[in-house]
């Protein structure tokens, strides 16, 4: 869609962002703050450690492993091995929903299990307590699987959660028990935890059940965590289209589905950052290609469905998908027609996640809004610049500490779903197989791209750009709103959602309209409305 707003030259803004920092910090930060050019895509420094004392929005490895990837599967009992805080803070705080088929089906999402480590365990070791905790959880629920998550002290005192898990798995017999070394100090952010989680799920779950999956067009949905019911909307669309969802990683998922995932013929990836490892590993071991899709935005959803149809190459599927798009689009268009006159020409900033800052730009474009600046909290360079930079990414001490699984083709189960020739043909048709072009190629020239934006920088950005809406999470929400700018939470959706698919797009348009055109903002004088502030002169020109 056409941009309606000219973006001011951001070089002065960049200068302002870093001039308060000590020289060394300024030098480091300037590599993570870049002025975009979609043609030549400049390098962005990403996935590097936050400098101590610079307040970041990033979380930890444990948060990425337990909170993000493993949390949404409803029938795994997740036991957090450590003192109480870590388990408490990840207790239902992610808004990932789940829908058991029957009310009596297993669902442990509302539980928060912790070994609640005390001083004596730090001194004398906590493995014994962990094993008792596993036994207790088993006796209570007889779950199919129990996962153990290590928090900071565990690695330091030398508790071996993997050995304890193996021992208990053997003892219990009918329960899969496995551990994760996701101590909070590992890696630079939650991203390390995603990788650790992918490894564990791949090693301990995927491939455990070889029952052939039913259905003609079978795929897995990777990197969709069902925040606010997002996965439900995608499931609805798939069902309408006649696409079989074998497993979801991991929104609204079950142990059985994940164990059976290798029976699908395609992996579609939503959040590339958190789950691309799984896509790669399943490709190598089972011969299932993966494709990057985006179900955030009505146009993007339609595009993603067409990509899936093209992959399967079935005319009937193509026709059915076109019929679904034709049926869904008028509802969406009616809402756009109503709302767009009120949102046209407004501006947005997105600093969130490892894929959301990219995906949600599509929804804003559909409302005629321009993204001035965007960045991820925990992504890597490939999420910004595209996967072609992968060979150029420097391996630092932090990434070296995260295990890379050695995966090879399974002697029995490896079956390439498409031949080399077929894959080439699909690529020639414009299908990005096993690829992701990243965020920056889709962003306007002179938009600002900032990795791991600090609290200080985001305040400064608001002061300088005066956006109509800022998208981030709860940690930024109230400081941004204090300055008279509405903040849309793109982690928890401010209790809203779903925002995926066609229904989701409608929800999002309405929510954004309610926020940017809300009368309450007239009662709050933004700092720059009060008097001359040190900001840039307004240089937005409506075309």
């Amino acid at each position, binding site marked *: 869609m056409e941009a309606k707003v000219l973006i001011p030259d951001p070089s002065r803004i960049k200068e302002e962002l870093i001039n*308060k*920092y*000590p020289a060394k*910090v300024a030098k480091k930060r300037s590599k993570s703050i870049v002025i975009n050019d979609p043609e030549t895509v400049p390098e962005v420094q990403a996935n590097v*450690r*936050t400098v*101590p*004392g*610079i*307040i970041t929005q*990033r*979380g*930890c490895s*444990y*948060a990425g492993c337990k909170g993000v990837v493993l949390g949404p599967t409803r029938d795994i009992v997740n036991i957090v091995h*450590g*003192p*109480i*805080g*870590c*388990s*408490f*803070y*990840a207790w239902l*705080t992610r808004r990932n929903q789940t829908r058991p088929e029957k009310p009596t089906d297993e669902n442990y999402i*509302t*539980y*928060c*299990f*912790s*070994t*609640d*480590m*005390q*001083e004596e365990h*730090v001194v004398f070791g906590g493995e014994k*307590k962990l094993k*008792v905790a596993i036994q207790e959880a088993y006796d209570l629920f007889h779950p199919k699987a129990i996962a153990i998550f290590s928090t*900071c*002290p565990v*690695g*330091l005192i030398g508790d071996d959660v993997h050995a304890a898990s193996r021992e208990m798995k053997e003892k219990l017999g009918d329960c899969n028990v496995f551990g994760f070394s996701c*101590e*909070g*100090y590992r890696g*630079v952010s*939650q991203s390390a935890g995603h990788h650790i989680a992918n490894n564990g799920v791949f090693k301990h779950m995927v491939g455990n059940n070889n029952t052939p999956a039913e259905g003609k067009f079978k795929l897995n949905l990777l990197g969709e965590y069902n925040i606010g019911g997002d996965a439900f909307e995608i499931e609805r669309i798939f069902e309408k289209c006649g696409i079989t969802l074998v497993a979801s990683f991991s929104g609204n998922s079950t142990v059985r589905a994940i164990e059976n995932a290798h029976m699908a013929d395609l992996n579609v990836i939503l959040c590339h950052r958190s789950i691309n490892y799984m896509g790669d590993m399943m490709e190598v071991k089972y011969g299932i290609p993966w494709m990057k899709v985006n179900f955030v935005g009505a146009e993007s959803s339609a595009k993603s469905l067409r990509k899936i149809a093209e992959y399967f190459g079935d005319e009937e599927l193509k026709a059915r998908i076109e019929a679904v798009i034709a049926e869904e689009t008028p509802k969406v268009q009616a809402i756009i027609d109503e709302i767009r006159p009120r949102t046209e020409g407004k501006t947005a900033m997105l600093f969130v996640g490892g894929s959301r800052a990219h995906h949600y730009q599509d929804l804003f474009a559909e409302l005629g809004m321009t993204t001035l600046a965007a960045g991820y909290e925990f992504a890597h360079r490939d999420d910004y610049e595209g996967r072609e930079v992968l060979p150029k990414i420097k391996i630092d*001490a932090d990434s070296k500490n995260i295990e890379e699984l050695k995966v090879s083709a399974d002697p029995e189960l490896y079956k390439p779903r498409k031949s080399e020739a077929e894959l080439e043909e699909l690529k020639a048709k414009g299908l990005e197989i096993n690829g992701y072009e990243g965020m920056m190629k889709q962003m306007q020239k002179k938009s600002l791209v900032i990795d791991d934006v600090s609290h*200080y920088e985001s*305040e400064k950005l608001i002061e300088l750009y005066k956006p109509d809406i800022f998208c981030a999470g*709860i*940690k*930024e*929400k*109230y*400081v941004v709103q*204090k300055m008279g700018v509405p903040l849309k939470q793109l982690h928890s959706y401010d209790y809203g959602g779903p925002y995926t698919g066609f229904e989701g797009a409608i929800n999002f348009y309405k929510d954004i309209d309610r926020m940017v055109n809300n009368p309450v903002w007239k009662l*709050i*004088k933004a*700092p720059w409305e009060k008097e001359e502030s040190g900001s840039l002169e307004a240089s937005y020109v409506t075309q």
Partner: protein
Amino acid sequence: MTAKTATQNACKLCTPLGACLAFRGIESCVPFLHGSQGCATYIRRYLISHYKEPIDIASSNFNEETAVFGGSHNLKLGLKNVTQQYKPQVIGIATTCLSETIGDDVPMILKEYKAIMGEADLPAMIFASTPSYSGSHIDGFHAAVRSAVKTFATGGAKKNMINLFSGMISPADIRYMKEILTDFGMPFMLLPDYSQTLDGGPWAEYHRIPPGGTATSAIAESGCASASIEFSSTLEASKSAAGYLESEFGVERHQLPLPIGIKASDRFFAVLEALSGQPMPEKYEDERRRLVDAYADGHKYIFGRKAILYGEEDLVISVAAFLREIGVTPVLCASGGKSGQMKKRLLELVPDMAEQGIEVREGVDFVDIEHEAERLQPDMLIGNSKGFTMSKKHELPLIRIGFPIHDRFGGQRLHHLGYRGTQELFDRIVNTVIEERQKSSPIGYTYM
């Protein structure tokens, strides 16, 4: 109750969270966690979800090397960066499980840091040791308050002022306490005062650190106060700020339960009258009269009802005593905290608790509480938002008090203390019972 080893659905939060909250109540103070960045992020998001205000917490961002070789370098670098960006007057440093497990000697690192940097231009630094494998959030809170007083308080000639260590109460409660002390015409130092930092207005200008909080100059004077009032039933003098001031500077310590209910509020006002030499201002006599009147008018709706009460020990003890005052039986008083004092302290306020069928459980979680609920068949739950799942499952109304309240709006503006707070709480309890009646009655009561 089953004796469990693991904790399932905890009824407590971690120690450093309490310390960060207390640091937020000191003017121009940035809380700083020595450990992995995840702790700062989690604690920020949790506090923010309740207070709905920005909360910055810095961290020393441990990595694997730091975890092995110690956090001295990261701490110093972090302090330097926070100082440069925020220009705070104070940095409140609390430890985490990580730095405590590896045994970082923070006071020594701070000493080295000061030596390198030269004292003059540095912000003041408060340090609280808060490993989360020891105690719960309330212990971290008190540790931070005590440490602030130890850092700043100096002795000297006695002044006509008192200290109020009000504990982990709501911003609205803090404002009310300040109003009361002001109306008594008594100079005071209230610590920690996050009434504005965690419940303030929009900003006309940018603030690195939100305005408000107890000034360090006021904390410095706390050693010269004529007395301290400390709200807590279970806090030992050796762990409390008022305890420190008493032993160090001879400032008399008045330990009072949180003033909830008429009796406890009367006790608080009596101490204020004694310390100020002033009678209770008419305004509060009025508030008290209205409350007594409300008790008389509302008793018939709630008398004989049973409640399960949970949360921090001090809050539970005080609310339990209040419930007895209005004829509601707190059949279970539960806490994830484990001071070992809970039963004893409640017994002092409710001597007939055994005959009334009041049970006290320390160190429990929500699974334990739920087991008890099945046996005790209460009419209502009183506590924080974490009781929601139980409330939904057992179709019990939940009256939200304390912290955290993240599934309702305005938790930071709830009153709990004094005649005014009791009035608010009383009205909510009565209305909850009436609403249940209204909902369950086939005709629905539309007039009362």
